[in-house]
């Protein structure tokens, strides 16, 4: 009986970790894409996550739509927003020093975060999914239907993302730009357009993550920074530019964090990841699956 409960709890924690992992994977993949193609470090990614969550919130609240439908709408809206931001802000700064890029994103953090706080107040918001109360029982397990859908949706999005990158001409152009920007230009690829699209897609993924976040828990305008920074740590751990690293890293991180909260308590939740990051970087400065830079 005890073993059963123990196992049941372990699996619950595991699944919760997987959900967190899904969020992190979406974030890490988006960041990886942006970094891979544009070589850009966007620290403001967290704010886009939360904004995506809020867009979904308002779509659900005002239009009464299914939250997962709202997610798709949010992804599209935020994708466009991302393209606009890239065109107006990042394009001017890309290629100048790394520090400028980082600072631009820090400035954006302040603008976005506080605009959201101004408009939406920092009262935590959550979306009540219609599937909230549905529980699926698998023997000793009781899993919320939402969790299953969340995982399913993430898998769907990731498959779509993978197909885009690997089976379409556009995806090929994006991969080419990330591997050799000069050669990509010589092949007739308009790399600036690719930059815009890449950023838009990365932000759309962030919006998906934000929507998941607001469904399974609640968000405030400030809730985005830490997940984004953790996602950065994840892609560094998994190796910059490695899509597999982003997925595996995200899942592992999610599970470790879930376990850490359960075992060690909330305060350490955020620190755990960075501790692991520092330890790994001491041993392998290019990350676990990292590409060796020439």
């Amino acid at each position: 009986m005890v073993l059963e409960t123990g196992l049941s709890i372990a699996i619950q924690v595991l699944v919760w970790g997987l959900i967190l992992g899904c969020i992190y994977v979406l974030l890490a993949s988006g960041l990886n894409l942006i970094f891979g193609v544009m070589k850009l470090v966007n620290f403001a990614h967290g704010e886009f996550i939360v904004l995506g969550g809020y867009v979904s919130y308002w779509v659900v609240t005002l239009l009464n739509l299914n939250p997962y439908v709202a997610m798709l709408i949010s992804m599209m809206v935020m994708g466009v927003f991302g393209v606009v931001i890239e065109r107006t802000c990042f394009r001017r700064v890309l290629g100048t020093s790394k520090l400028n890029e980082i600072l631009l994103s820090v400035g954006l953090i302040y603008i976005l975060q506080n605009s959201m706080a101004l408009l939406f107040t920092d009262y935590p918001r959550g979306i009540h999914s219609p599937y909230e109360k549905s529980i699926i029982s698998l023997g000793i397990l009781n899993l919320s239907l939402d969790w299953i859908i969340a995982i399913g949706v993430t898998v769907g999005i990731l498959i779509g993302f993978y197909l885009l990158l690997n089976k379409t001409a556009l995806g090929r152009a994006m991969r080419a730009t990330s591997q050799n920007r000069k050669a990509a230009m010589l092949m007739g690829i308009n790399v600036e357009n690719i930059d815009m699209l890449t950023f838009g897609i990365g932000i759309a993924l962030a919006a998906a993550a934000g929507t998941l976040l607001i469904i399974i828990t609640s968000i405030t305008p400030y809730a985005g920074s830490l997940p984004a920074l953790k996602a950065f740590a994840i892609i560094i751990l998994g190796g910059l530019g490695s899509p597999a690293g982003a997925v595996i890293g995200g899942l592992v991180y999610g599970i470790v964090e879930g376990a850490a909260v359960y075992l060690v308590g909330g305060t350490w939740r955020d620190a755990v990841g960075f501790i692991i990051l520092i330890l790994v970087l001491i041993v392998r400065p290019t990350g676990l699956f990292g590409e060796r830079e020439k």
Partner: protein
Amino acid sequence: MKIVLHVEKLTSNYECVQVLWDVSFDVNEKEIVAIIGPNGAGKSTVVKTITGLCPPSGGEITFNGDRIDRMSPYKIARKGISLIPETRDIFPRMTVMDNLLLGTYVNKDVDLNSFGEWIFQLFPVLKTKSKKMARTLSGGEQQMLAIGRSLMSRPKMLILDEPSLGLSPIMVEKILDTITEINEKGMTILLVEQNVQEALEIAHRAYVLEEGRITRAGSGKELMKDERIKEVYLGM
């Protein structure tokens, strides 16, 4: 004969690393034109300015009647100039097939099947290794991939920057034979080469670039017989 590429009084400054002074030359349709000269003369700079990778400080470059100086590289590529760079610049973590397919980004109505077959005929190794990652290819194979990729875009002119660099003599022969074959099929080619012997053998016409200036011009055969060139470059 129709002039495809017309370069007039091209000047560049240190922004392009090497300095060019009033460089002028033409490439006619279906010709192989070679630019030869010592290291550091500015050959690569000529290529970079034509393909838009660095801005000239003066002069004009016209391609099929359109001014292309100062245009951005991707627009120049779309006009039909395809460069095979000195460093090959294949996409390392993509398959050979994907690399080739990228060539069609510019020119979407390339009939892959028939055209692809010709490229595989030219370079059979690309067919056998088509699913392998490009970075696993040898130097010569990467060169072939780079040429194949450029051909896939059905360019109006090919520019080859030091195609023989780093290759074994056999490979150099093969590549240059292939260049001749491509030219016989009607491709206009601008060849920049350090290997003077080989370049003059296949070129219809050639220009000598020394210290940023054109010092001599003539047909391939003429230049091969030229005393000074024989002495300085051919070691005779």
